[in-house]
Structures are given as structure tokens and as C-alpha cells.
């Protein structure tokens, strides 16, 4: 660790200063690829929300949401530095490779977390800020510190953290959240297990070395493959809902159906190819396509709603508003603060 002396680390014997990490190392702590997905999904949440907001406020809010998501990634890297060092995929991250000190990452993550929540509260509203704070807490504490090393359902429950941005986006615009963003939440939530388990199938030795109870290590590859197919079969129809509910148009319907079928096809290929190189290739193909899939769904929603290019489906007029149970549950959730307080 060159010139890395940690003032908060007792082993450094009080001579601590700071590391010589560069700006790009700090940027890497924010998990930029995850941040880009958060930007697209939060923007889609704003675009599909019933209402409008000043473009500067939207941009400022988006920046705060992206930085908040990055901050939670930074706190995750700080907490997981010990296991990151043991896995080939993560050993080159800034902390395990010695470019950034753990204490620097912690300070950076906490500062950005608090700053992003405060800015979102000032720029947008308290509900959006509260949801961003909860998202950071959920990812950094509930997922990273608790679920990840404890249960094979870690990424199922933890997936909620990645699914919140569209809801925050809608809260920025309306000061509330409704069915649109709940459906977008469900899409990301159901997408997370097939996405991560495809990677976990290939990297199970890494996870075993680090002692993380991923599903392939605990329940075995066969059970994981069945779960991947099951989640894909539920996720693909849910991903079509925006078109049926009127906030996705014809283009969204076509894209969601075609890419959904491709996701199911790739998941089935993972199920049947269980040995050697073909199995590895099938898992990588599903992992890679799943990223494209989510990007495409939300990018199309963004283009249709944000740029006013939506060609609405006639079917919306027959299916719209036909969800009394979900609406009722939402009303109950909204009324909870009044009931409790």
C-alpha cells in the first residue's frame, strides 16, 4: 500500500495521513455502471409520473439521486473490502488494491449520503429525500452489513434497494407515489435475482472463498437454475404491464414482449446447459443480456413519455383502472402515518 497511512487505523501508529488515490479512484467507489442504471430508471420514474417538474429541478434531483446511489455503493465497498480482496471480480477495487484507505471511503460515502439527501430535500421534497435516505440505508446496512453474508436470499431482498429509484423519481415530480412507479419497482425487483444468480453460477468459487452464501453455493446450481427460470417467467409478463396500464405505448409493448421472451429463452438455456463451457457461456449470456434488457425497457419508457413519442395502446382504455386491490393496498399504505400517529 504505497503512502497509505490511515489516521483512523490504530495499526498505522498515529502517523496516518491520506492515500494518494486519484479522483478516478474515488469515482470508481461510486460504482458508475450501477449509477448509470439508477439514472435511467429514476428518469423513467419522473417521465412516467402524472405531472411535470421544471427541467432544472429534474436535473438537480437526478444528480442527487445518482450521487446518493453512488454513496451507498461507496459504503458497500468500504464494508465489503475484506471479502472483495478474496474475489477475482472485485480484488482490483480501490480499497482492496490499496489505492484508497477504508477511512477515506467511509468519510466519502457518508458525506455524499448526507449531502445528496439534504440536496434532494431542498431541491425536490421531503418524501423524495426520505426515500433516498431509506434506499441508502437499505443498501448499505440492510443488504451489505446484514443480508449479504447471512442468507442466500440476500440479493432477492436487497434487490429492493436497486428498485427504489423510479419511485424516488415519481416522488420528485408528484410529492407522492402511485401505481406507475410501483410497477417499475416490481420490474427491477423481479429482474434482480435472474441477473445476479446468472453471475453467481459462474463465480460460485469466488463466493465460496469469500464465505458469501449465494444461492448456487447453498442450494446448488440446479436449484439456482430453476429459480432463475421461475423469476424470469414472472418478470417478463410484469414488464409488459406499463403498456397495459397506459404509460407505455406500442413501442414499449413490442420491446417488452420481444426482449421478455428472449430473457425467458436465455434462462431456459441456462437451465438445460449445466456442464462445462456451454453452461458458463449460457450464464454469461443471460447476465449480459439482462443488463441490456433493463436498460431497453426503461429507455423506451423514457423516450415515449419524456419526448412525447408515445403511441398509446387502445387496450389501455379497457384495462386502465382495473386494479382495485392494488389501489386499495396503496391507499392503506398512504393512510398508515395518520393511523399510527
Amino acid at each position, binding site marked *: 500500500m*504505497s503512502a497509505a497511512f490511515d489516521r483512523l487505523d490504530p495499526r498505522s*501508529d*498515529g*502517523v496516518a495521513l491520506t492515500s494518494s488515490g*486519484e*479522483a478516478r479512484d474515488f469515482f470508481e467507489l461510486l460504482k458508475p455502471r450501477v449509477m448509470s442504471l439508477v439514472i435511467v430508471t429514476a428518469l423513467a420514474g419522473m417521465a412516467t409520473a402524472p405531472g411535470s417538474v421544471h427541467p*432544472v429541478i429534474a436535473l*438537480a434531483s437526478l*444528480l442527487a439521486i445518482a450521487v446518493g446511489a453512488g454513496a451507498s455503493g461507496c459504503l458497500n465497498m468500504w464494508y465489503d473490502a475484506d471479502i472483495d480482496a478474496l474475489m477475482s471480480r472485485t480484488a482490483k477495487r480501490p480499497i482492496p488494491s490499496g489505492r484508497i484507505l477504508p477511512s477515506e471511503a467511509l468519510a466519502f460515502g457518508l458525506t455524499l449520503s448526507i449531502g445528496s439527501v439534504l440536496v434532494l430535500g431542498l*431541491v425536490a421534497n421531503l418524501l423524495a429525500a426520505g426515500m433516498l435516505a431509506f434506499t441508502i440505508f437499505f443498501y448499505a446496512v440492510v443488504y451489505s452489513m446484514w443480508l449479504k453474508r447471512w442468507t442466500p436470499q440476500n440479493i432477492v431482498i436487497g434487490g429492493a434497494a436497486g428498485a427504489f429509484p423510479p419511485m424516488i423519481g415519481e416522488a420528485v415530480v408528484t410529492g407522492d407515489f402511485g401505481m406507475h412507479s410501483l410497477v417499475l419497482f416490481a420490474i427491477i425487483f423481479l429482474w434482480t435475482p435472474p441477473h445476479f444468480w446468472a453471475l453467481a453460477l459462474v463465480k460460485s468459487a469466488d463466493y465460496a472463498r469469500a464465505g458469501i452464501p449465494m444461492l448456487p453455493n447453498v442450494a446448488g446450481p440446479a436449484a439456482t437454475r430453476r429459480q432463475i427460470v421461475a423469476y424470469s417467467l414472472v418478470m417478463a409478463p410484469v414488464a409488459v404491464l406499463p403498456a397495459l396500464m397506459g404509460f407505455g405505448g406500442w413501442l414499449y409493448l413490442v420491446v417488452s414482449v420481444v426482449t421478455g421472451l428472449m430473457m425467458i429463452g436465455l434462462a431456459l438455456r441456462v437451465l438445460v446447459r449445466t456442464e462445462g463451457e456451454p453452461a458458463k457461456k449460457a450464464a454469461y449470456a443471460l447476465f449480459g443480456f439482462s443488463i441490456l434488457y433493463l436498460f431497453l425497457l426503461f429507455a423506451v419508457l423514457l423516450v415515449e413519455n419524456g419526448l412525447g413519442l408515445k403511441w398509446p395502446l387502445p387496450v389501455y382504455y379497457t384495462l386502465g383502472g382495473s386494479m382495485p386491490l392494488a389501489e386499495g393496498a396503496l391507499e392503506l399504505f398512504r393512510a398508515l402515518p395518520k393511523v399510527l400517529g
Partner: protein
Amino acid sequence: MSGNPQRPTPPAFSPEDMARRRRRSIALALVLGALVVFFFVVTLVKTGPAIMNRPL
């Protein structure tokens, strides 16, 4: 001024480390400058046309 005998002297940074730290400082200054512009623009937008409604 003599240093604390209990506290070892920190090792000197190499020229390469110093260059990296300088680049980091410049990046930080740019981010802070951008933040100033960010808050200025957001304040203008939040205040709206009423920004001129004050005694001069």
C-alpha cells in the same frame, strides 16, 4: 520545534504521489466550483420570477 518522540515522522511522499495528490486537489476544487454554480442556478429556479420582488 522538536516533534513528539512518541510519534514517528510520517514518511515523505514521492514526487509521483505528490503529483497524484495535486491532481486530486484540482478535481476537488472543480467539484466545489460546480457545486457553487449548481446551488446558484437551483436557487434562481426555486425562487422563480419573484427573485426581483424585493426592495433594492
